[in-house]
């Protein structure tokens, strides 16, 4: 009995691989698109703000002002494109997107410093791109603080006072796990989850609808094949391909983008298997409900894409979205898997720390496959 069931499952799994192998679009969608998405997203959605185009306006023209502006040139954060000749030009430069930050050193800057008075500079930020603007602003403030401290130290030296001895509070902020705060480290473990979700949900959503459209489902009904066998056989090839995708993404991420893999690969693989099963189960639910291939495709896109991006914590911290949507996010498995993926890759976390997410994922995948079987069984009712 079991041998016969395994033979039937094998027959369907083999047939699925033939379908995939004969359909170039499918092959591209499964094997090429994920890598392209990885490269595209990693470069395009980079949250690293570096080389912010900057212009400077030196109205002081002293050695002090030149020394101050030189600090902007000597850091990677700012890319000083050139000097402008008047305040009116800032608007023009911003409008033509030549720069996002303008640094203005007013006349009298050098004189004020020489007199040990408070000197003022203006840092003007183009706010139309808030992310870059915010970070640019933060860098500018930090840079000015450092510069200010240097000026203060020099003043102290001249006055014969050791500033370091004066009581001062100096915050030292450290970022753990990703000390350079490189966004690739943050993005790629999450991106892996998002890509797997899109590939798997989309493909399984279509696969059962296709059997119905082709009429081959009726031929299966007159065979000894049972529904769970069909479900398992349909999930196997996609689980395998999802793992291939995951391995490729991990290799590209580690080898090419230099992200760390600190935790256990085995734990990650177990969690990933549960996640893939849950995602495939979602696809099967869509397949059971969708009236046609087209609608299955669209529903899959909506279900897989939007929640994967917005409600998974992949791009935005879940704490920053409205409470209602936070609640909705619990309904999608990507949320749990992204925590696991980042935990394993970046923090070296394992079962001891991540078991709640693993348990939720396990429960989720069982529930989803059961719902899919029930729905499909009802739909296929003779």
């Amino acid at each position: 009995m079991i041998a016969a069931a395994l033979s039937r499952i094998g027959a369907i799994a083999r047939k699925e691989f033939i379908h995939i192998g004969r359909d170039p679009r499918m092959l591209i969608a499964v094997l090429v698109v994920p890598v392209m998405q990885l490269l595209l997203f990693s470069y395009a959605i980079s949250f690293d703000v570096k080389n912010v185009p900057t212009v400077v306006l030196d109205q002081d023209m002293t050695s002090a002002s030149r020394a101050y502006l030189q600090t902007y040139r000597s850091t990677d954060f700012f890319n000083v494109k050139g000097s402008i000749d008047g305040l009116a030009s800032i608007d023009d430069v911003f409008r033509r997107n030549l720069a996002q930050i303008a640094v203005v050193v007013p006349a009298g800057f050098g004189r004020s410093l020489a007199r040990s008075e408070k000197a003022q500079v203006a840092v003007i930020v183009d706010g139309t791109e808030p992310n870059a603007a915010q970070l640019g602003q933060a860098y500018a403030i930090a840079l000015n603080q450092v510069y200010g401290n240097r000026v203060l130290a020099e003043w102290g030296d001249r006055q014969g006072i050791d500033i370091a001895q004066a009581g001062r509070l100096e915050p030292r902020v450290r970022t753990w796990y990703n000390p350079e705060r490189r966004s690739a480290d943050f993005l790629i473990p999450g991106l892996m989850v998002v890509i797997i979700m899109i590939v798997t949900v989309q493909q399984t959503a279509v696969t059962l609808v296709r059997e119905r459209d082709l009429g081959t489902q009726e031929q299966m009904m007159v065979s000894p094949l049972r529904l769970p066998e069909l479900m398992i056989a349909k999930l196997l090839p996609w689980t395998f391909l999802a793992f291939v995708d995951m391995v490729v993404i991990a290799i590209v991420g580690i080898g090419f983008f230099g992200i760390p893999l600190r935790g256990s690969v085995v734990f990650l693989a177990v969690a990933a298997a549960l996640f893939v099963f849950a995602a495939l189960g979602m696809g099967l639910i869509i397949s059971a409900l969708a009236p046609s291939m087209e609608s299955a495709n669209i529903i899959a896109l909506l279900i897989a894409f939007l929640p994967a991006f917005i409600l998974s914590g992949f791009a935005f911290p879940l704490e920053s979205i409205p409470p209602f949507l936070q609640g909705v996010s619990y309904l999608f498995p990507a949320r749990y898997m992204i925590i696991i993926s980042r935990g394993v890759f970046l923090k070296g976390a394992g079962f001891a720390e991540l078991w709640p997410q693993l348990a939720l994922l396990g429960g989720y995948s069982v529930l989803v496959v059961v719902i899919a079987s029930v729905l499909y069984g009802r739909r296929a009712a003779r």
Partner: protein
Amino acid sequence: MASPADSLAIDARALCRTFGAVRAVDGVDLEVRRGAVFGLLGPDGAGKSTLIRMLATVLSPGSGDAFVFGDSVVHAHRRVTPRIGYMSQRFSMYPDLTVAENLEFFARIRGVPTAQRRVRAASLLESMGLAEFADRQAQHLSGGMKQKLMLASTLMHEPDLLLLDEPTTGVDPVSRREFWRIIGDLRAAEKTVLVATPYMDEAERCTDIAFMESGRIPHRGTPDEVKALVPGTLFELTAPDPRAALAALSDAPGVTSAHLYGDVVRVLSAPHGPDADALLGTVRAAGVAASEVRPAHVDMEAAFAFLAEQRGEDS
């Protein structure tokens, strides 16, 4: 619950199925004896497909039951399916798989052992003239070849009963003849065949026929029995203007029915009604030229045209 009649391949009792407000199959009783080539005839929408799908266990009856070799399609479909081969009206193979791969796949999920799969696939492809197309993708086959592939696939597990839903619809005449030759071979191999068709001429090749209309089966029997239901004599009249001749004959005394069949007018004369000369006289008396009237053999086409007309008058 087994059917008492062991000689029956199919024993359907008061089978019904509705789709929304449409009564697709409306109380069908049907007995098909073993070894029969049973033709299920009727126009599109008569309910033939619905009936066959219920017998094939892919659609459950709304009410009633059917026994296939004594097993209920409702309660014991897992005992029914191994003994039947079901060929749906639509092409239902994988278009991207080759002929050989399709046969292999469906035989595997049917549980045919590997060694037998090879032997049977080879011999079926050979006998159907598909051997040279074994490695061609199903989507690149002609209509006739597609139908033969489907039939080959339903034969791989050597079923005792074949349920064929309009296997020759949309197939060229040569392939149709070829197809019926294969059905003849199946009969020789003591298989039972239930075949639905909208083509009346194919009924002549069946051992038994049933005429289905609006979800019911009003007439059944051997082809000769069905033809014997037609009383009187059939004449064929050729005329330069067949429509005018038809008009002249429709209401003539002693004429049960008259209708156009291609270019000729077919006239059914009641028992003791007008003979060939009398009919010729009637037409000419109406001022219509007629070249010839000769008695004709009552074929299935004529029989069904008459029976349909008769039912129309009854209701």
